[in-house]
């Protein structure tokens, strides 16, 4: 409840901070914001670019919602995206046959490898009590160097070993597009289905109810007869599978090859999306769209006004921080007792 009240104020802070940053960088704020909007939605190819960023972001965020609901900090999501991309790349490079066969297999390959990578922190947590943040960070770096190893080693382009990426995959393995639009309808269907499934799973299923119980209070959930360890593993597995799909979309839908920075930072950004959504499933898709738009739109800013496109990241970060701190401050002042605030207002 407090969180809802905190949002308008936080947005004001977020916009205020953005304006200050733009002024500091010597750019006219209104013009800059118009450019961001125009850069994200100005024509069909820009809308396509925004959607291409939205796809992996919303997939990762939907997965992260599951782990967050189980009380888990799956910071290893970046590594799970990378492993998903590697899984999809492996299928794309090895499986012969028509598009109708290979494309579904790339999605399966990505999801499976992403889930498998996510099971490592899950097992380290349940079996060895290793906190998932630290194992997750570690495994992300390991995944990233596996990708680099594949790119400069076994999967290097013929004659050149460079970190610019592998050869392009065969076109029949790409996520299929309709007409000249770069966004694959298959990817859109997968992403929308994923978000809706997560929403239904968490809200309406027994699994979701118990998962939330595990997240809120693991001790009492355990005493209540819920196998908390199994739910932890399941949450990680599901999140890893969705992150793996995000990696697949990046590999076979966007880059069409494996590159070192294949995750595009969408895993970390997905954590911000879920934090800003206040862990509510319905908000995941719109907030992810907003983040994708800011991200894509701000590249226009650097082209036209010469402002570093990292402005997007700053805006996103300030917004999330503002929501958290304003929300926290409201809870704090409420806890101090309504009498004090009542007097001030009166």
């Amino acid at each position, binding site marked *: 409840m407090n969180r809802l009240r905190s949002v308008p104020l936080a947005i004001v802070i977020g916009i205020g901070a953005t304006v200050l940053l733009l002024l500091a960088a010597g750019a006219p704020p209104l013009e800059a914001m118009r450019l961001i909007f125009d850069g994200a939605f100005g024509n069909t190819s820009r809308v396509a670019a925004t959607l291409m960023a939205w796809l992996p972001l919303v997939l990762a965020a939907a997965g992260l919602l599951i782990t967050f609901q189980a009380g888990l900090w799956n910071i290893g999501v970046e590594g799970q995206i990378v492993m998903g991309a590697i899984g999809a790349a492996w299928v794309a490079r090895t499986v012969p046959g028509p598009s109708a066969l290979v494309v579904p297999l790339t999605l399966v390959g990505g999801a499976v490898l992403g889930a498998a990578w996510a099971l490592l922190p899950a097992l380290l947590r349940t079996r060895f009590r290793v906190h998932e*943040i630290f194992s997750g960070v*570690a495994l992300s770096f390991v995944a990233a160097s596996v990708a680099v190893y594949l790119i400069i080693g076994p999967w290097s382009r013929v004659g050149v070993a460079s970190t610019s990426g592998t050869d392009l995959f065969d076109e029949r393995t790409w996520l299929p597009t309709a007409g000249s639009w770069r966004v694959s309808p298959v990817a859109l269907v997968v992403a929308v289905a994923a978000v809706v499934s997560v929403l239904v799973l968490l809200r309406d299923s027994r699994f979701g109810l118990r998962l939330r119980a595990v997240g809120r209070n693991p001790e009492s959930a355990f005493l209540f007869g819920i196998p908390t360890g199994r739910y932890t593993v399941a949450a990680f597995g599901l999140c890893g599978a969705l992150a793996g799909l995000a990696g697949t979309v990046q590999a076979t839908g966007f880059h069409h090859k494996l590159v070192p920075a294949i995750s595009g930072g969408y895993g970390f950004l997905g954590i911000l999306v879920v934090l800003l959504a206040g862990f509510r499933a319905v908000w995941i898709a719109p907030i992810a769209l907003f983040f994708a738009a800011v991200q894509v739109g701000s590249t226009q800013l650097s082209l036209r006004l010469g402002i570093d496109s990292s402005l*997007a990241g*700053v805006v996103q970060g*300030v917004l999330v*921080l503002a929501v958290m*701190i304003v929300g*926290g401050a409201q809870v704090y002042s409420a806890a101090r007792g309504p009498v004090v605030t009542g007097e001030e207002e009166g």
Partner: protein
Amino acid sequence: MEIVAGVVAASAPLIYAVVGETITEKAGVVNLSLDGSILLSAMTGFAAAATTGSVVMGFLAAMAVSMLIAGVVAFSGIALRLNQIAVGFVLFLLAKQLALFFGDPYIGRTGPQVPAWDIPLLSDIPVVGEVLFSHNLSVYGSFLAVIAAALFLSRTRRGLDLRAVGERPEAAHARGIAVNRYRYVATLVGGAFVGMAGAAVSLDQIAGWRENLTVNLGWIALAFVIFGGWNPWRVALACFVYRGLLFAAGEFQVQFPEFVQVLTQLPFLLMILALTVLNTERFRRFADRFPRLRPFLAGEAPTALGTTFHPE
């Protein structure tokens, strides 16, 4: 010996960072923003030094920025009772982006560096003089940081109180220790060290600013705090060994390129291994048989790490 001296010098930034985070975590606070804090303070330190022409100003600016971030972590974790990990993570991303945003004009510029300064007399000692006392103030500072943190935590009354705050805040409170004040101070002091880590990179080790200047240094530091079992000596030793291995990796890069790939991942694999092994029952029983080796074998996190304490 030149090589060992080089390894000692190269370890300085990592050592500042691990010492800072150890102090913070000993008081029960996690500052997860480390990686972003270091990058932003490296940028700020370089920008301040390049603008004013003073290395000292650079270090001070870097420390101020990093302390500000640490202050936000402490305030939202302690006063607002927000999740320290959530706030730290958001600050990590935010600080990183801020560094890129404001650092853009400074890319490729040259600026002042910490001047070399051999310590008189001490640097004339054979071998030891060359390895330890022929560097600059930034490197000597990293030695002092380890010694001061270790002595403070194990030999002083306030250090004992600090550890009590991180282990048993209720008991510390009952003994009249101002739990949350200690936590604020420990987080800010830790932040100051983290700022020095950033400045030690941009004003000494690499001397300059570019995107991703401090590649993953913060995450490596967080890993080593755990691997070093929250003990400043062990943490520092781990840093030296790691830098030594990295140096060796550089030597073998041509013959065994894969070796370098493996080695840069070593801190993370070691961290997982350490956490896994140290948490097993069998290892605990083993360690309990050697009480004297306890400081070297124990690896338990401060009990109240990441929790909030509110005196009612």
